[in-house]
């Protein structure tokens, strides 16, 4: 909880003001029974009318004071809690942005989302509450207790005799509550995950008619959320009845013994009335307790979850990085590179060494799962090597500052992911301050300009989430254009032309040939590979062959096999 609430620190000043205002209000409330005792003992019993009027007006003034401070408190409390949650959300979101991809395997995205939304809101609520009423209840209890002692210590003792028992009880309940509510939040994660998954797989679920199946699965997940929530709340609901009962018993004790004290002349009626009044106020405050404890337990569970993110060990992304110098030439060296995915045991890449000169083009081929995409991921440091090193421009990639490194690389991923926004927005991901002409220029190269022009709104056509309203090939070309906009010195294409037809693809490659960039191209097609200067053939994470098309045809049996699988039809009788 400490880390999370340290985000409230900048607002200490406002917090103090809010608390002082709340204390003012509390003070007024505590004064009231005292004034009443005065009205009864000095006014009614003494028969002094002036005292009654004076004290009555005094009470009015006090309430006005309480009101003014209450309203002011509202502003301060709202400001503090909203700013706090704003800062906290920012910190968590920023932290997530700085995570390496390995961390995303550790925290599934649905869990991250719940933390940013539901958990932050819960913590925010508790802060708001504590600035307004939460501290008020305990303070009211303590204040009432002190006042009761001031009025008549002997009677007051009877009132507080049950306190230690009640406090011990509360302590136990808080501990229980935290455990139960963190279960609840975990269940909520699962619900979120299922909803997210289902939204992403709408078509698949429909195609396989699994609507009912999914609904049943969801019933289970939602059912366990229900069971755990009920369990947590039911435990918490025990608090109030027990507290009330304890307080009521001590009230009776005060009355019983108070009666004797009055008879013996050790206490006055007004005093007894005042203490009864205080006791009832305490009882009232206690009814807040179960609520507070529930809120506290929930927010503690939530802040622990948030802290998991804020304090997560993620060594890598703390870039060892040197100055943010932009890399110009793009020569790439792999030196004995091995790589195992974090958490996995079998290496995906084993002892790879090769060298690409600036502006050279390397095609990477190999069977499904041979490590092609994994190899590419090491260049922009999505993951770090497990052994050996990757060097760009003569320096280990781990020595470049991450942003400088990534700024020189244009990545076109296998799955072309676009974001909600216009086409222009999406393209400008490549370069923030790009002119419209630059965007269009890149689109022309990526063979998508004409298509975009045909849309009624052109570059301002809105793209739905993940680009739902575009065809697979259109998405691929947009994501190529996005990479070209930044004029990268290294261009990485991960099988990014698979959905393009032959003609478009040929035109695209012609454009790409003219780009001044070192290119790494994962491809399945010999036709594409032939355009490259060299071809790297991977087999089970190792280099099976390296060389030009002709060399490989001669040397590598695997390559010949691949070539054969594609050239069969070219000897076809019809053409």
């Amino acid at each position, binding site marked *: 909880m400490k880390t999370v609430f340290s985000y409230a620190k900048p607002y200490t000043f406002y917090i103090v003001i809010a608390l002082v205002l709340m204390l003012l209000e509390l003070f*007024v409330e505590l004064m009231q029974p005292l004034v009443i005792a005065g009205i009864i003992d000095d006014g009614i019993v003494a028969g002094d009318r002036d005292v009654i009027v004076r004290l009555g007006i005094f009470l009015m003034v006090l309430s006005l004071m309480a009101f003014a401070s209450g309203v002011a408190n509202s502003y301060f409390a709202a400001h503090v809690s909203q700013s706090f949650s704003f800062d906290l959300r920012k910190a968590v979101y920023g932290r997530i942005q700085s995570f390496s991809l390995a961390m995303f395997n550790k925290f599934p995205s649905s869990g991250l989302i719940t933390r940013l939304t539901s958990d932050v809101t819960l913590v925010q609520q508790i802060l708001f509450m504590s600035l307004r009423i939460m501290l008020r209840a305990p303070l009211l209890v303590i204040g009432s207790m002190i006042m009761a002692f001031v009025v008549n210590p002997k009677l007051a003792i009877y009132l507080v005799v049950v306190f230690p028992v009640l406090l011990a009880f509360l302590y136990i309940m808080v501990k229980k509550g935290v455990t139960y509510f963190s279960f609840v939040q975990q269940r909520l994660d699962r619900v979120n995950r299922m909803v997210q998954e*289902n939204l992403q797989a709408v078509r698949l679920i429909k195609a396989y008619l699994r609507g009912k199946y999914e609904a049943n699965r969801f019933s289970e997940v*939602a059912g366990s959320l229900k069971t755990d929530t009920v369990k947590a709340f039911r435990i918490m609901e025990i608090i109030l009845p027990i507290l009330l*009962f304890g307080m009521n018993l001590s009230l009776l004790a005060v009355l019983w013994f108070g009666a004797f004290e*009055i008879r013996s002349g050790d206490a006055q009626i007004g005093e007894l009335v005042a203490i009864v009044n205080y006791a009832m106020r305490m009882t009232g405050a206690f009814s807040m307790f179960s609520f507070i404890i529930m809120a506290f337990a929930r927010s503690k569970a939530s802040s622990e979850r948030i802290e998991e993110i804020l304090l997560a060990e993620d060594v890598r992304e703390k870039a060892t990085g040197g100055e943010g110098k932009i890399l110009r030439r793009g020569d790439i060296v792999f030196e004995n590179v091995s790589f195992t995915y974090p958490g996995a045991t079998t290496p995906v890449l084993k002892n790879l060494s090769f060298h690409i000169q600036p502006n050279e083009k390397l095609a990477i081929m190999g069977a499904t799962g041979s490590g092609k995409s994994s190899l590419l991921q090491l260049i922009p440091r999505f993951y770090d090597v497990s052994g050996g090193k990757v060097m760009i421009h003569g320096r280990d990639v781990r020595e470049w500052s991450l942003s400088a490194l*990534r700024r020189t690389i244009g990545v076109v991923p296998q799955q072309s992911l676009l974001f909600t926004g216009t086409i222009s927005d999406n393209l400008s991901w490549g370069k923030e301050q790009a002119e419209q002409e630059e965007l269009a220029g890149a689109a022309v190269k990526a063979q998508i300009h004409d298509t975009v022009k045909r849309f009624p709104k052109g570059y301002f056509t809105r793209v739905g989430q993940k680009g739902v309203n575009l065809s697979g090939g259109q998405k691929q070309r947009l994501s190529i254009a996005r990479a070209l906009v930044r004029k990268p010195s290294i261009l990485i294409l991960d099988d990014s032309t698979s959905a393009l037809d032959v003609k478009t693809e040929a035109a695209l490659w012609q454009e790409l040939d003219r780009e001044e960039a070192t290119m790494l191209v994962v491809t399945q097609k010999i036709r594409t590979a032939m355009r490259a200067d060299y071809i790297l053939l991977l087999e089970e994470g190792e280099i099976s062959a390296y060389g030009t098309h002709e060399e490989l045809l001669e040397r590598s049996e695997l390559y010949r096999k691949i070539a054969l699988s594609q050239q069969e039809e070219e000897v076809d009788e019809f053409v």
Partner: protein
Amino acid sequence: MNLFDAIRRPFGYEPIIKKEDLKKDPDKKTERADNWKSTLTRIWKLVDEQRLLLIVVLALVFVSSALALLGPYLVGRVLIDQYIIPQQFGGMGVVILWLVVIYIGHSVALYLQNYWMVGIAQQVIYRMRTRLFSHFQKLPVSFFDKRQHGELMSRMTNDVENVSATLNTSFIQVFSSILTLTGTAVVMFLLSPLLTLLTFIIIPLMYVSVQWITKRTGRLYKEQQRAVGDLNGMIEETISGQKIVKAFSQEPRVMDEFLVKSERLKRAGFWAWTYAGFIPKVMNFLNNGSFAIVAGVGGILALNGAVSIGVIVIFTEYSRQFTRPLNDLANQFNTVLSAIAGAERVFAIMDETEEKDDLVINAEKEFEGRVEFDNVSFKYEGAEEEWTIRDVSFEVKVGQTAALVGATGAGKTTIMQLLARFYDANEGEIRIDGTPISSMPRETLRRQIAFVLQDPFLFETSVYDNIRYGKLDATEEEIIEAAKKANAHEFILKLPNGYDTVLKGDGSMISQGQKQLLSIARALIADPVILLLDEATSSIDTVTELKIQEALERLMAGRTSFVIAHRLNTVRQADLVFVMEMGKLVEAGTQEELLEKDGLYANMLADAKL
């Protein structure tokens, strides 16, 4: 001037509500009330079989409220006035014993009502969640195209949670507040009509001030929920698209966007919370005021002997008890408001029209697999572009394989989606075995179609379960068999836990090509009449592809299949070839016919040879 500005824009928050907006309100009041009524009725319907238990809870609330009133009455009127002041101790023990019984009863009733209420509330929430989810399953694909996932998720969690919190506590609170209020008013009136009237002076004041506040908070809460949904949408998208964000070093840009949305939420939240925070303060003030009046005037009356000291004691306590429920009610009003706003957003989704099966003629029909498109035209909802599919007609006979070729964006995928009825054609008719597909339930249709989608999607479950998705009652042997056919068996065995390996969200454990192999295995096991393969092997290397080709051929034999592929050897094996261009079918025929024609297709083949 400066002070004025500080009040208008505290801490620099720009005001949200304008004066003009508030004036517009009265016209819409009835409409809003109607909305609330229907929302509340719908929630009531969700209570369902728990209604009886709810009545028990209400009875218990009645008991505990009565006991809560009886306690102070016995203390003030009996214990103080009749025993302590006259110094009479005989029989005091009995009264105390009665009080103990009352207090026990109060605590038990309190616990039981909460115990059951939590159960009821969570059951209602559970129903709301599962119904919303099953409704998701019935909504057409176009619904999801239009919305951000995060925003929808926000309704499923945030808004539902809002309703949940309210049902948990507010329901009992509201009811007990009303009870306590009436009870207290009656007892007070019996004790001293004059003092009671004095206490009541504050009621109109309360009404006016609470109205002033809630008029504002209602709007503000709505704005807050909207801001939450918007922010969540953005969060979901950027977190699931993290790889791209990183690849393009767009963290600062994403952060900026996040801050703008977060700022909007902060502003709405500030105003909503500030105004909502006024309510208890106003209540407290009126409360304290009435306390002062009762004490002052009551004191003077006591001087004349018009009331007893005991009455003043009870009254000061009661006037608190009287205003506390009002206070609670006012407080609850806010949470209830935000819950209603949440429920409305949930119900809004439930009111979205489902994929409906009208004109159902052939409910249970076993296909043979003849597919006809008859002048079919289609345009995506809300798309201003021209037709995605225009006047397409063709026929594929039972067991034939048709390849769809053409430039990207030509409408190939759309043809498949129309056949699976993800979307319905705007014009023309699609028939299977002569029966229009619009006349049969989607279930009948989709049960006999297997669709391997362009983007292979895998669930965060085991490999085993992912393949089983094609046929839920498949045995382990069948699954392994399918995996072998799809050439996936080998790599599955290499995964940490083989078939039991749980695939992670972004699937970084396995490659895109392997994902495709798994989704082919999934289709193999489904054993459909009609098979749709949309770029099913695009990320698979050609050597592996050759290996699964045989399995695919076996799968396609005797089945009507549609194939989209850019690999020529896949296309070359098709019986029919349909060449699409900008939504139109420009060439159709067998391989031989098209080559003879020497048109587009022949050109494509020639190009490919380069």
